[in-house]
């Protein structure tokens, strides 16, 4: 019985991990690095690469919980608006309500978590599809940020607050440490815990997961709340880096975040994806942006590249998946 050969496995010449989407992406990334480095001598310097890490932290922090969400087959389009709302509330609670800054930071993180919690509770209780729920809150949260701030900015934070956004710790940008810790924790949670495996179960077949007694709604509620919380954290890092608070902060983040996650091999249909893939996806997008900028392509044209890469990579990924499933 146990000797029944697995035909599709026996035929394989290349080891399985080489064919993985993430591995191929990493190879492409490596080639891109070498080519871009050859085109511009400023590209492959440690300073530049570390600086790119600094710039990718804000999107990266949100991309981790977004990976969880997309693995379950959901999506969160409101993250950019949550960043705006949290940034505004950080500035306003400090400057206008007179909170001490540490309290203001906690407050804005709390608001981020609450915003994500609201998404999660409506998605799980009322069963509103995540796409439309987060389109609604994309408008709502941005609207709150605009309404509260009346488009006025807040600046003049105390010196210590700029540490996380601008200083180095052991020669590495301070916020990059934050991102690294978050990556390690997310990877362990996704790969090694029951919670993480539940995410895949939900994404593969939600009904089956429910019947297996998995706490589907609770898990979903946690990941949407986490997404809001990380968007809040990202807002704090962003404000600290750019030193001002404006209500238009984080506009378009959802595109960068989803692009990184999908580029990293997480299927938008759910059930498939890894943190490692998201990290490679993040690096890919940031280096593409930076490399293009260094070779003289304007910032707006790089959005075009990201959009194209997003569509093409989904095309490739879905056709690969179809071939694997023999459809």
């Amino acid at each position, binding site marked *: 019985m146990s000797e029944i050969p697995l035909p599709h496995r026996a035929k394989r010449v290349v080891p399985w991990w080489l064919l993985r989407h993430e591995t191929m992406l990493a190879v492409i990334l490596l080639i891109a690095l070498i080519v871009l480095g050859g085109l511009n001598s400023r590209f492959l310097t440690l300073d530049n690469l570390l600086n790119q890490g600094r710039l990718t932290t804000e999107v990266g922090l949100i991309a981790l919980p977004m990976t969880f969400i997309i693995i379950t087959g959901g999506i969160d389009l409101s993250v950019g608006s949550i960043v705006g709302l949290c940034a505004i509330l950080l500035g306003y609670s400090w400057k206008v309500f007179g909170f001490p800054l540490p309290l203001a930071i906690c407050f804005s993180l709390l608001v981020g978590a609450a915003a994500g919690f609201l998404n999660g509770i409506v998605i799980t209780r009322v069963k509103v599809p995540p796409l439309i729920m987060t389109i609604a809150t994309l*408008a709502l949260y941005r609207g709150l940020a605009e309404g509260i701030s009346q488009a006025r900015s807040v600046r003049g934070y105390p010196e210590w607050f700029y540490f996380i956004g601008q200083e180095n710790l052991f020669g590495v940008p301070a916020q990059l440490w934050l991102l690294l810790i978050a990556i390690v924790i997310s990877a362990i949670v996704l790969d090694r815990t029951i919670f993480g495996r539940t995410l895949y179960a939900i994404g593969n077949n939600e009904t089956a997961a429910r019947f297996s007694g998995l706490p589907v709604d609770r898990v979903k509620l946690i990941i949407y709340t986490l997404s809001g919380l990380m968007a809040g954290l990202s807002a704090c890092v962003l404000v600290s880096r750019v030193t001002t608070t404006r209500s238009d902060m984080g506009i378009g983040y959802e595109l960068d975040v989803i692009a990184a996650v999908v580029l990293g091999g997480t299927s938008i249909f759910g059930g498939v994806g890894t943190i490692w893939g998201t990290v490679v996806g993040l690096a890919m997008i940031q280096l593409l942006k930076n490399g293009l900028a260094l070779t003289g392509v304007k910032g707006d044209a790089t959005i075009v590249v990201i959009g194209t890469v997003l569509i093409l990579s989904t095309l490739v990924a879905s056709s690969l998946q179809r071939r694997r499933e023999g459809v």
Partner: protein
Amino acid sequence: MTAVTLAGAEADPRRWLKVFASQEALLAIAVIGLAIAVGLYNPRFLAARNLSDVLLGNAYIAVAAVGMSMVIVSGNIDISVGALIGVLATISGTLAVNGAPIVVAWLAALVAGILVMALQGVIIAYLRIPAIVVTLGMLSILKGGLISVTGGKWITDLPDSFHLADIELFGVLPFPVFLMILVTILAALWMRYSASGRAIYAVGGNAEAARLCGISQPRTIVMVFALHGLFAGAAALLYATQLRVIQSTVPPNLELTIITASVVGGVSILGGVGTVVGSTLAAVLIAEIASALVFIDVSPYWIRAVQGVLILVTVIADILRRRRMAGV
């Protein structure tokens, strides 16, 4: 016998109740009720000038929402339409300024709209990539492309004959309002009474059942997106021709306003349900609310929050109503 008469007697008032409870009737009541309420607070709101400005300035949103409603009824979504309208307006304006015949400039917007949307439809329907990914990617391609090609420069010195939105039919009816009404009625009739129109509901309601009925799902989706592109082109023309200049950037959050109009108009985001009459009424309501905020001395910066609450409330109501109807 008595039971039958009782049931019959009961059915009549219930049907009336149903008509009044329909999304369209509620929206019409909301449009009129809001006008009266704000008018009582500030009579200047009801001035003919203001009301016609509200209609004129926002007719293009209603026209685009008609196409968006079809897309959502078919079970898809499009978040690239705002960026597309910006691109189409710029294409049309650039042609007009550079001496192309005005009709060509107008047609170019319509044709380009159909092409871009049909392409997205093909990718979604035949290559089976979810609409959200395709349109999100297209959004950034269009937005980034427009800014990097034009550098954000405004188009000025548009020829007078270009201004489609200035035309008044029979000397009274402004063209944008006429187009809004015409497009809505035609689309409503087509979706209700033609086989291809019904196919949209079938595909959105239950794709598998539609397939078994011999309806080609991919072809229907490509058709829906192509039509949506046509309406986006028409909307772009109204948008481009209502002012003396075209800001060749993407109008911010336009797609959100258009989606809001569709959803608030009763188009169910789960697909298969909704009418374009509702979405047009909702577009009028949203424009009215934006104007009303100014007249009751609320900062216009709150408009987007109001929009968000509107979508949220209607979506939740829609889902709860469906669940009650399904008897769950």
